[in-house]
């Protein structure tokens, strides 16, 4: 496996020495069957290794669905087989009928959308500056932006709580901490870091010459950005929004510390799962989880659809 072809010139060998010395053997030609087997093993290994993760993801979703189906049928057999009992004993329907869960869904939708919009609004200028400009402290800034990604979520929540002990944040702490705005702020704190990363990668992939051309055509930097760069970055913006939205939906640690888990007040879907599990209602917890899965899937599909439409127009 690790033999060196005799024709290769090792250190110290020279064209003269090989020309004057013994005839150099070109080695054995690789056989087609050996290459074929090697390629098959290579792809089989990669498919198995990569596939394991896919199986895990799909398995989790199927398990959730199977659990709920089982619970639905348990309800039906104990109360008869009418269509009404199927609907009334469906854990999702039961969860959706709960006023607290309804509140949690609405707050989740609103807070995630607000957090994603604010994240994108911050991520576009930040991603642009990091991608296009060299400045002192850029490396440091880059590292700072990674902090929310690598920091334990509970620590982010705690840090936010501590931050609001100091002015000027303290002046508005009463209206923020353990209130609805804290939900958006906690979600934004983490989601924005992902949006910034996405926007930086987006701008990195757009040819900077386009902006240069726009400037030579008479544009100011702002005009070049608005007329040329922003339309080119449309798909990246959409991806950043989706990522920030999905990230916000799944946020839990910072919320628990910074917003509390007060029902009908600061309860979002991830908090609902926690609260239902705490009172031992696994059915409701799984049902809420499934609602979150569906919301995330809908957002992903919509994004893909909008993205592919945009691509088709191009």
């Amino acid at each position, binding site marked *: 496996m690790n033999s060196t072809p005799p024709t290769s010139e090792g250190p110290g060998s020279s064209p003269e020495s090989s020309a004057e010395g013994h005839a150099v053997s070109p080695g054995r030609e690789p056989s087609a069957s050996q290459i074929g087997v090697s390629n098959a093993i290579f792809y089989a290994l990669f498919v198995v290794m990569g596939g394991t993760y896919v199986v895990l993801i799909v398995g989790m979703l199927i398990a959730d669905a199977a659990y709920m189906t089982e619970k639905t049928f348990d309800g039906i057999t104990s109360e008869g087989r009418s269509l009404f009992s199927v609907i009334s004993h469906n854990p999702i329907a039961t969860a959706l009928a709960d006023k607290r869960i309804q509140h949690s869904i609405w707050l989740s939708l609103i807070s995630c959308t607000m957090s994603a919009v604010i994240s994108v609004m911050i991520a576009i200028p930040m991603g642009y500056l990091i991608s296009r400009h060299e400045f002192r402290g850029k490396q440091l800034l880059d590292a700072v932006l990674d902090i929310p990604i690598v920091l334990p979520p509970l620590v982010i929540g705690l840090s936010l709580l501590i931050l609001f002990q100091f002015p000027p944040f303290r002046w508005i702490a009463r209206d923020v901490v353990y209130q609805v705005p804290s939900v958006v702020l906690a979600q934004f704190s983490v989601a924005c870091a992902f949006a910034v990363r996405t926007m930086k990668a987006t701008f990195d992939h757009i*040819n900077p*010459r*386009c902006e*240069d*051309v*726009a*400037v*030579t*055509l*008479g*544009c*100011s930097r702002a*005009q070049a950005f608005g*007329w*040329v760069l922003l*339309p*080119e970055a*449309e798909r990246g913006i959409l991806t950043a929004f989706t990522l920030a939205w999905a990230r916000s939906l799944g946020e839990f640690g910072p919320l628990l510390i910074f917003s509390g888990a007060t029902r009908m007040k600061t309860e979002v879907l991830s908090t609902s799962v926690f609260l239902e599990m705490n009172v031992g209602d696994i059915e409701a917890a799984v049902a809420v989880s499934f609602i979150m899965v569906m919301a995330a899937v809908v957002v992903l599909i919509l994004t893909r659809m909008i993205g592919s439409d945009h691509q088709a*127009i*191009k």
Partner: protein
Amino acid sequence: MIQIENLSVQAGDFRIQNVSLTVPSGKYGVLMGKTGSGKTTILETVLGLRSVSLGRIVLGEQDVTTLNPAVRGVGYVPQDGALFSSMTVRDHLDFALMIRKAPKLACQRRVEELAELLGIEHLLDRKPRGLSGGERQRVALGRALSFQPKVLCLDEPLSALDDDTRVRMCELLSDVQKKTGTTTLHVTHNRDEAERLADYLFRIEDGQIQQVRPES
């Protein structure tokens, strides 16, 4: 006229020192040199995309050494065309005029005029995706000429084209330059392209610019 006088530019670790060249008004100047010789850096300095360490740049009668690229009045055709993927060909030809808030009718006339000059009338409603290399460069040329610049800068505009398209584009460039009378600086590493197009031919080698044609 394009006049570069004793120009020194620092581009990262790369440095160009004390180079000069002059392309008289209405002439086609070609700066030829190997990859990494600094010809693109010089072009970018003329465009105002790089700042000058020493020396000066005069375009027409105006010293533009420290002038913002947006007001230099230089048309630019980069190597890859750098077309705007979200715009149609018509939008490209219209863009500089739209920025200058030109009347709609004037924009429309100019677009038609350029499309005819460059033979891209049939492409006006298409987006860059799917255009051939030659078509892309025609659009980029039209966009650069749209605001009737006093100077046109071309950075290896034909390097990505096949031989046949390159010859046709050379003819087009020569034809368009003669019709518009725009003073042009074209940067290339291709000798054949340089010989075909140049009224004034310069060679950059070891950081020095030599005028090859006409002999100085």
